[in-house]
């Protein structure tokens, strides 16, 4: 429960109460949520910059970019930000990064950044209330060893503490000012006052640890004396998660398809019906076999990968299909239209890509 409200698993009666209220009229706000009328944070991408000792043991030659980490790994966080004129490079932001070395979000807990100390260069061992990672375009730090269970969840079951650590520790966040914004310090002050962040960018996310089998090996000696097979079960068989890449799109206009790479521009007839689909590579959508309890054969599990499209202007016919991998729209009458796709899987990896539609009569 956060703030007295269970946000992820809503109480059914509140749903009913809200449904009764929704029997009332509901009117949309002035622009759809997918319109990038101003700079907007789409997500935070995590990459393994340098493996630690536990990761080396796993697969030192892993070609894909892991999106799960182990103590000792150096993690790099890249903000995915876009605006009406296209993607905004991290270097164009005035960012302030912070780390919450606790199995809880600093922002949700109400912490302030004003008096936060700088995070040490040494691996962190917590818990510490927010510390500052600095003002670089991207943030990086070395994941430390998780704190002892009693510091994560005093009075609670050790198994619960282990799951908290495995699923929601630590948290990294960014408060930033876009170009022509009020500046990082002004945004930081607004965040600390919990006032409107209309001209600022705010994002915070948990750092997923994994694979869980390796996490269990790390937690055991730290005092998390639990039988992880009982609490995590088949999840221990999941291999390490990786970031998908948004590199190639298939664009269909009037029945004719073309392959377009991310960041490229494609000409479209004004007013034409356009269909844009992300084409995953063989490694992007991960499948693996898991042996379920009392099952005679392993089951193949395919990760869930969903997309969300953002457009630099309001367009007709906006329709997202196929779990968000595909977008249909009517090309505007003139000019350039930026399309951004944010991909997110069920273990928290986030990545994005984009392309430009150029509406011209020729």
């Amino acid at each position, binding site marked *: 429960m956060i703030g*007295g*409200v269970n946000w992820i698993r809503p109480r059914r*009666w509140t749903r009913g109460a809200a449904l009764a209220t929704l029997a009332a*009229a509901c009117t949309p706000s002035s622009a759809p949520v997918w319109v990038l009328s101003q700079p907007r944070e789409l997500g935070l991408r995590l990459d393994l910059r340098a493996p630690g000792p536990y990761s080396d043991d796993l697969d030192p030659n892993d070609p894909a970019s892991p999106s799960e980490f182990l103590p000792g790994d150096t993690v790099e966080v890249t903000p995915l930000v876009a605006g009406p004129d296209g993607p905004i490079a991290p270097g164009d932001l005035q960012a302030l990064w912070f780390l919450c070395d606790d199995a809880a979000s600093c*922002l949700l807990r109400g912490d302030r950044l004003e008096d936060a100390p700088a995070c040490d260069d040494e691996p962190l061992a917590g818990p510490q209330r927010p510390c500052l990672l600095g003002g670089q375009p991207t943030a990086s730090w070395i994941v430390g060893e998780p704190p002892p269970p009693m510091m994560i969840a005093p009075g609670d079951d050790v198994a619960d503490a282990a799951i908290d650590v495995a699923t929601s520790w630590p948290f990294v966040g960014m408060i930033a000012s876009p170009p022509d914004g009020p500046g990082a310090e002004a945004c930081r002050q607004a965040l600390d006052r919990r006032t409107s962040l209309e001209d600022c960018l705010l994002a915070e996310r*948990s750092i997923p640890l994994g694979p869980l089998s390796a996490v269990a090996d790390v937690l055991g000696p730290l005092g998390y004396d639990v039988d992880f097979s009982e609490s995590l079960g088949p999840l221990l068989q999941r291999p390490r998660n990786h970031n998908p890449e948004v590199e190639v799109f298939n664009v269909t206009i009037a029945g004719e398809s073309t392959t377009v790479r991310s960041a490229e521009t494609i000409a479209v007839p004004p007013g034409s019906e356009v269909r844009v689909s992300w084409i995953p590579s063989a490694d992007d959508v991960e499948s693996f076999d898991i042996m379920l309890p009392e099952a005679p054969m392993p089951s193949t599990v395919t990760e869930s990968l969903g997309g969300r499209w953002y457009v630099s202007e309001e367009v007709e016919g906006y329709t997202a299909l196929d779990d968000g991998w595909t977008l249909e729209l009517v090309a505007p009458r003139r000019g350039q239209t930026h399309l951004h796709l944010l991909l997110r899987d069920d273990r928290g990896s986030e990545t994005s890509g984009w392309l430009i539609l150029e509406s011209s009569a020729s």
Partner: protein
Amino acid sequence: MADPRIVGLLIALGLAGPARAVAAAEPAACTPTTCAPVKGSLRAAGDRRPLAGATIVLIPAPPDAEPGRMKDPPPPPDDPAWLVATRTDDDGVFETEPVRHGLARVVVVAEGMLREDVIVEVGPAATKPLRLFARPDPDEPYRTEVAGPALPSAQREPTRRVLEREEIQTLPGSQGDPLRAIQNLPGAVRAPGGLGVLILRGASPAQSRVFIGGLAVPRAFHVLSLSSVIPADLIERLDFIPGNFDARYGGATGGIVELEPRTGRRDGVHGFAELDLAAASAMVEGPLLKKKGSFVVAAQRGYFDAVIAGASKVAERTTGDPNDLLLPGYYDYQALFSYPVGPGELGVRVFGAGDRLRAQRREIAGFEQDFGGSNSFDFRSGFHRLDVPFEVARRRSTTRLVPSVRLQTARRIVSGQALMRRRTDVVPAARLETEQRLSPHATLLVGTDFEVARYFAVDEQRPLDVVTAADAERREDDGVESQTGVYATTELHWGPVTLRPGARATAFTVDDQARFSVDPRALGHVDVGESWRLSAGLGRYSQMRPISDRDSIDLFEQGAALSGSSLTLPSVFGTFDPEIRFAPDDTDLSLVQALQASAGAEARFAADWTASATGFFREQQNGEPLRFQSDPIAATSSTRTGGAELLLRRRLGPKLYGWVAYTLMFSELRFTSVDRDAVPDNRPSDFDQRHNFVAVASYRLRKGWRIGGRFRVTTGFPYRPVIGSVSVRGGYLPVLGGRNTARLGTFHQLDLRVDKTWVVPRASVSAYLDIQNVYNRVNPEALLYSTDFRSEVGVIGLPIFPTLGVRVDY
């Protein structure tokens, strides 16, 4: 010899010439074999009210007339051959002097009624008594007097507003509900979601009280505040006092509403039946014991749950998708008896109300069927009260005793959590007061009141592991909560100046804990000339602050999640009525105390117009400690409210009533000390509504039509915005901004109402169409965010809402 007053009336009506009035008033000599009197009764068509003091005139019938009511009667002749006249008595009964056998024309003239002309057969046998019904004159309609004449001591407070029953029943947008009608007066904040909570001068609904017959009721509204627990038809008088109320009342730091139940009519059996889209109600009243006593019995049943369930079934058949449902249902009943005993009047009042709110899930799991059925949430509450009021009014004193006992129940079942909570209260209560005129310039009111609640509470929680079928954990609690007050007020008159100093001492107890308060209060006014009155009030008000309960249940929380989007409600919903308190916890009992001050001026001009301006201020210490759900700090806080109320009002007249009201209010929550270094910033209180403008008008047209409208413009409520979000496994969590740091958009709405009444001799039938939000504006009551909380996807408000109702009075 005819009564000269009657002769004058006849002359004025053209039924007799001045020179021949005396001669024409005397019929030819009669004998018992040639003449007979005409007897009968006269009542008002529609409600069959006896018409006293009406003039009954007999003149010869025109040629070719036939017995019965004359349609399009010709004017009476200037020079009738004979004329006999009389008046009806208090029961509407009349008997004329004997007139010659044969047809005679009866002319009925009654104030406020159309003239009636009837041809009767006067025969040698005893003429059957006539039963005459006079129809109301549309240009001068009768109306039921609700409030009695204003007594010198009635206007005790600087701000006391009275609503007439006809105003309550016909006010656009209020569906005839008395407490919802109050929301249109200055000092009452527009309630969120159009519901019926009373937020008076910025005070929480829990800080104001509604008194029925001198004793407080635990709940003034039904679930989700769809209706008041007592209908307008049972109210003799409704007084709305938004602040600075007299020492007679305690247990509230905001304002009060006094509802005085009426006695039944003694002129015959009457009643009504009414049906609209949400509820059905009926009432019967009449005389008892040779018309010395009277009774009123009434009941109401809200069937919104049936309407929603029915509509949902239709939708489910159409779409194939099961629906979750929120089903509110309610009932209330009243039985009032009164009878004169000795020098006073003894009454017996039994009334009560029940509510049920269910959230019904269409997917049923076997486990949940055992504990809550298909209802994921099932809340029931009710109260039943018995009063035996006795009042004696003598020349120099009035004494009133109201002993009472009340039974309250509340039950909540949450099947998803396998939790049941139940509480029962038995509450004896009473008020005893006497008002004595000490001298022409001084009156003393002393009295006492008390409430002692003996409560029993049960908590039962069944573990989720149904496989092992472990026993439910059960906890029982019982105890006593009480509130006892002693008060005295003196009223002193010196010419145009009236002062009412007073004080109230109250003892609050919960089990073995006790707190005491002594609240001095002073009210006064000065009459300047014939038309002006200046008034002021100052006083302290105390109320027990609810002990922190194990589970203080508000039916609305700020913020709720739906799949696909998330709903944010403004903070005002967090203290929504009803809040269900279960067994109190072992925390300290503390008092909320408020200092209130107000001053105003009122002018009466023309016949029915008044204008008033009032300034008010309220500083309330909120008791300690105060904890916030999402800010885990302990703080000492106070609420400071100030503002002004303006009212221009046309009192209920033959055709028109209405008013224009404006309230300006600032209400701020201020923190004075905390147990941490950081001091929260002061912020607008949950009920801060800066501007509130209401214009109401209702006009009676011809042929039983009435039209009315209401236009409102108010500032939006403050709310806690979402300023960002955090990405976690499985979704997003919102980052909340400071509480009440944002404000919803301006509210404005037009409501229209049309009434049509058909009057037939023994009954009247009324139909109404009440349309709220005529131009279908989506006023923001709540916000919807996208699943990642990065943007608002829409606002929620009540759409255009028509209500159709039919009522039969007899």
